[in-house]
C-alpha cells in the first residue's frame, strides 16, 4: 500500500507537522507538558502538602534555599516562606491552581462565547447587532478594572475569580466565533448543503462549527495565558485565593514584605514558575496561530 503523501493526510496531522517545525514552539510545548505533569502529579513529587497547616513548621520560616528542614527529613531546595512552607511544594501546588483556574475559565468561557457567537451569526439582524454591541462594550474596557469591580461586589475566593474570568473572557470567543461563522456561511459548501435540504442548525454544528475551531483554538491558548496572569494578579492584590491555600500570585505577594531584607526567594521562584508557564503557553499559542492561519483558506 502506497504511503500517504503530505496532502492526503488529515488536516490535524498536517497542522501537527507544521507546528513541530518551529523549535521554539516545541520547546514551549515541552515546558508546558512538564508543568501540566507536575501539577497533576503534585502529591507524589512534593515532600510536603503546603495547604495542610499541620505539616508546616513555623520555626522553619524564611529559610534560605537549600537549607535542610529541622523537623522533617527533607531539604528546602527553594527555601521557605513566611509560614514555613516549602517553596518548591508551594509552587507545584500553586501551579495546580493556576492551571485549573486558567484552563477552567477559558474552557467555560469558550463554550459560552462560541454559543453566543454562533447564535448571533445564525440569528442575524437585530439580535446579532445587539449581541455584538454588548461584546464590543465588554471588550472596550480594560480587564483588570472590570475584574476589580466584579470582585468588589461578589467577594473574594477562587470560585469568584473563575466567575469573573468567565464573565470577561466569553466576549473574545463570541466575537471570533461569529466572525468566522459569517465567513463560513458565505462559502460554497454551505450553499451546497442548503441546496441538499440539510437543516440550518445541522449545517451550523456539523459544518460551520468545525471550521470555526482553528481561530478559537488560537484564542483559547492565548486566553489561558491571560487568565492565569489575571488570576495571579488578583491573588497578588488579595482578591483571589484564601491565604491558607496560596496560588503563585499570593506567594509572590507574601514575599513582598521580605524583599527589603533581601529574602528574595519567596517572591522570586514562584514568579519564575509563573513566567515559564505563561511563556510556554504564549509560544505554543503563537505557533498555533501561524500554523492555523493559512489553513483557514481551506
Amino acid at each position, binding site marked *: 500500500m502506497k504511503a500517504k503523501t503530505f496532502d492526503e493526510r488529515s488536516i490535524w496531522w498536517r497542522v501537527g507537522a507544521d507546528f513541530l517545525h518551529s523549535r*521554539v514552539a516545541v520547546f514551549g510545548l515541552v515546558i508546558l507538558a512538564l508543568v501540566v505533569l507536575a501539577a497533576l502529579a503534585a502529591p507524589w513529587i512534593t515532600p510536603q502538602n503546603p495547604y495542610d497547616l499541620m505539616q508546616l513548621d513555623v520555626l522553619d520560616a524564611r529559610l534560605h534555599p537549600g537549607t535542610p528542614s529541622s523537623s522533617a527529613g527533607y531539604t528546602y531546595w527553594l527555601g521557605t516562606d513566611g509560614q514555613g512552607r516549602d517553596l518548591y511544594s508551594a509552587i507545584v501546588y500553586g501551579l495546580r491552581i493556576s492551571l485549573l483556574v486558567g484552563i477552567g475559565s477559558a474552557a467555560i468561557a469558550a463554550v459560552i462565547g462560541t454559543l453566543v457567537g454562533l447564535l448571533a451569526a445564525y440569528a442575524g439582524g437585530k439580535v446579532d447587532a445587539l449581541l455584538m454591541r454588548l461584546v464590543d462594550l465588554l471588550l472596550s474596557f480594560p480587564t483588570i478594572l472590570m475584574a476589580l469591580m466584579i470582585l468588589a*461586589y461578589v467577594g473574594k475566593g477562587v470560585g469568584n475569580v473563575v466567575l469573573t474570568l468567565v464573565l470577561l473572557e466569553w466576549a473574545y470567543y463570541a466575537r471570533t466565533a461569529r466572525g468566522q461563522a459569517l465567513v463560513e456561511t458565505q462559502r460554497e459548501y454551505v450553499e451546497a448543503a442548503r441546496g441538499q435540504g440539510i437543516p440550518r442548525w445541522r449545517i451550523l454544528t456539523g459544518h460551520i462549527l468545525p471550521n470555526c475551531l482553528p481561530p478559537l483554538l488560537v484564542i483559547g491558548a492565548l486566553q489561558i495565558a491571560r487568565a492565569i496572569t489575571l488570576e*495571579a*494578579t488578583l491573588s497578588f492584590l488579595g482578591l483571589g485565593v484564601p491565604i491558607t491555600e496560596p496560588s503563585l500570585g499570593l506567594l*509572590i505577594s507574601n514575599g513582598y514584605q521580605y524583599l527589603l531584607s533581601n529574602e528574595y526567594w519567596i*517572591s522570586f521562584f514562584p514568579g519564575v514558575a509563573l*513566567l515559564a508557564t*505563561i*511563556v510556554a503557553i*504564549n509560544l505554543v499559542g503563537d505557533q498555533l496561530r501561524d500554523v492555523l492561519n493559512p489553513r483557514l483558506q481551506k
Partner: protein
Amino acid sequence: MTGWLLRRIAQAALVVVLMTVIVFVGLHAIGNPVDILIGDDMNQQERLEAIARLGLDQPLWRQYLAFVDGALHGNLGKSFVYQEDAIRLILQRLPATMELAVGALVLAIVIGVPLGLFAGMKPEHPVSKALMAASIVGFSLPAFWVALMFIMVFSVQLGWLPASGRGETRALLGVQWSWLTWDGLQHLILPAFNLALFKISLVLRLTRAGVREVLPQDFVKFARAKGLSNARVVVVHVLRNTLIPLVTVLGLELGATIAYAVVTESIFAWPGAGKLILDSINSLDRPVVVAYLMVVVVIFVTLNLVVDLLYKLLDPRVRLEGAR
C-alpha cells in the same frame, strides 16, 4: 467631515449615558443603596436623615435623574474614608496616573518602534530573532512580579533608584507634575518602565509586522528607483505608512495603561488614581468607586473618539474620501 464628527460625538455621549445607567442600576441591584452611599456607622436617626437627604426614598427614575443632575454638577458623593468629594479626590490623583501612563507609552514608542523597525527590515538577523523571542517573554511577564524584581535589583541591591513613592513636583499649567524635577524623574523611572514592559513588546511586534507588510509594496521599490537615500526611504515611506495604523492601537492602549496602572501604583505606592481605587475597593468606599468608573468611562470614550479622529486625519485616503 463635520457630519461624521457630530455623529461620533453623539455616539460617544450615548455610551457615557449608557454607562451611567449601568452603574446606577448596578448600584441598586448589587446591594442596598443606603449602605452603598451612606456609611455603615451611622445611627438610625442619621440614616433616616441621610436617606431623605439623598432622595433614596424616591422612585428609581427620579433617583436616576438626581444622580445625573449631581454628576453634571460634579457631585458624585462624598468619600467615606476621606470625607471629601469623591470626584475631587480622583481628579487630584489623576495627574500622577497620567504621568505614569504617558511615561510608559513614551518609553514603549521610543524603544519599541526603532527595534521593531530593525526587526522588520532584517528579519533574519540574529538580533531580530533575539528581539522577537524577548518580546514573547516581554508580554508574558507578570507585571506585578517584575515590579518586585525591579525593586529588589535596583533599589535594594544596587540602591540606584527609590523603591516607592512619587518624587518632588513642580507646577505646569496649574498642575503639579513630578517629571519636571530630577528627583521626580528618579521616582518615575521604575514604575513607568514596569508599566511599559508589556507595551514595548506589543509595539515591537506590531511595528515589525507593519514593516514587513509595507516593505514589499511597490511604492517602496519606486522610492528606491527614484534614487532616494536609504534613510529617507525607511523613514518617510516605510515608517510613515507603518505608523498610521499603529497610532490608533497606541491611542487605545493609553486607555488600557491608565487602567493597568492600578497594580503598578499599588506596588510602588504611587499616589495615583489607581491606588486610590484599589484602596477604595478594599475599604468599601463605594462613592469613590462610582466616581472613578465615571471618570474612566469618560476618558475611554474621549480617547476612542480622538483616536478615530486621528486616523482620519493621518490617512488621506480616508479623510478625502468623505469630502468628495
